[in-house]
């Protein structure tokens, strides 16, 4: 396996999340908003953002988790992906919902997340926060809050690892992942 490049280390992830939290407060002004993390890594990021929002801005922001497996557009030609819990302990109807995910690439995960979310209610507004935007969108989806924009090739693989999953905090870029493995 080719040696991956570290795009963000623990310190950079922390700084990026801090910037994102401040941008959310600025954008929301006095309005309330809730965070919904996309399973799995997005959930941990949403929890960290909520903690930062509480500590730095005194905002008590509710967090939900959303699994998008049921709404994927590629279920027909794949082994079925694992299904993690969707747990949203509040009514999303009428709220400003910030979806949180680790890496934004084709936009298909977010398309699925919008489908999953609207089955649960009718938010007033949905925004998108991602730690890394690596480009190469295949759908008209853009983030509202970005930790870091990274220039990549479509065949690269970007992977986020977090302490919560038993590793070290880092975002890794694997060059030509598909070519290397095929």
């Amino acid at each position, binding site marked *: 396996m080719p*040696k*991956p490049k570290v795009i963000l280390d623990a310190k950079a992830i922390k700084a990026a999340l801090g910037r994102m939290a401040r941008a959310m407060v600025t954008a929301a002004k006095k309005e309330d908003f809730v965070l919904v993390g996309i399973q799995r890594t997005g959930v941990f990021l949403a929890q960290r953002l909520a903690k930062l929002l509480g500590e730095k801005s005194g905002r008590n922001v509710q967090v939900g988790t959303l*699994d998008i*497996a*049921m*709404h*994927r557009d*590629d*279920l027909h*030609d*794949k*082994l*079925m*992906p*694992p*299904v*993690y*819990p*969707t*747990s949203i302990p509040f009514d999303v109807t009428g709220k400003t919902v910030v979806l949180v995910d680790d*890496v934004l*690439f*084709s936009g298909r*995960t977010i398309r699925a997340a919008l*489908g*999953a979310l609207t*089955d*649960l*209610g009718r938010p007033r507004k949905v925004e998108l926060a991602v730690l890394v935007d690596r480009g190469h969108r295949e759908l008209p989806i853009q983030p509202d809050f970005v930790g870091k924009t990274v220039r990549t090739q479509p065949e690269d*693989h*970007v992977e986020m*690892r977090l302490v919560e*999953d*038993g*590793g*070290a905090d880092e975002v*890794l870029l694997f060059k030509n992942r598909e070519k290397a493995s095929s």
Partner: protein
Amino acid sequence: MNESTSHAPIQPAPVQWKRKDLLDIESLSPEEIRLVLDTAESLKDVGRRMIKKVPALRGKTVVNLFIEPSTRTRTSFELSAKRMSADVINFTAEASSLKKGETLKDTVRNLEALNTDIVVIRHSAAGAPHFIARVLEASVVNAGDGAHEHPTQALLDALTIRENKGRIEGLNVTILGDILYSRVARSNIWTLTKLGAHVTLCGPTTLVPREFARMGCYITHNIEEAIRSADVINLLRIQHERQRKTMFPGTAEYANLFGLTPARFRLTKPDVLIMHPGPINRGVEIASELADCERSVILDQVNNGLAVRMAVLYLVSGHGAATQTLTA
């Protein structure tokens, strides 16, 4: 720490379901059983929503082929398939051409000609699902074959136990009643022993043969002994339709010897779970008031049946893609 270990995968990749069919529990690994339970647990939420439906199986066709009569299992499979957005057709023994002399093989081949993706089959002959699974490209789910297995019932029982007790490993589970003719018992024994529970079987000597000890169970014909240290008591219905008269003591005598009565219930652990796959014969295998007591999770089982069947339909529909992996 060198470079390769610091970037090693954090967790082993989760187990993936690679089987075309769900035919029995016997051939599943503990990891596969846990995958079904985890998937079902995640899907439970769908039933609590205002929109009780997800699009995962949109465009898929599920046929319920029930050669042996059943209402609750068929209804549960039908509703599960609908909650996953599949289209469902029901074939029953009365309505099918099997009555007109068609073979099972021809019946299922006709179903496949309708572009069926999943066949859910109940049949009075053990092994019928395995037979049609070999004939069909479509996925096959066993909804009960004779006295052999009833895998989704055992999985929903395991989910109910795990939900209420937080674990399965190390628990004492007593299965009480007609073991010999029970596919539920067989599937439960496989599931529970694979997940590390201690299984005790109890009932009349004619209905609980010694051979079951080979499956790793403790066998007793003394009900007091069987229930005293149980964390879970799973009561099985007497399968009158499969009995020979000589093997069964009679309803009143059975209730007297092996029924869960209030007096016996007082011997059990305070946190025991009372389970029953239904339909209940009140006053026979269980006293009426105990079926409704707070330790009874009989209706939880019914509810978990939906989540487990949704999970199974979801997982088997990924077959044919064994070499593919998911991209972000």
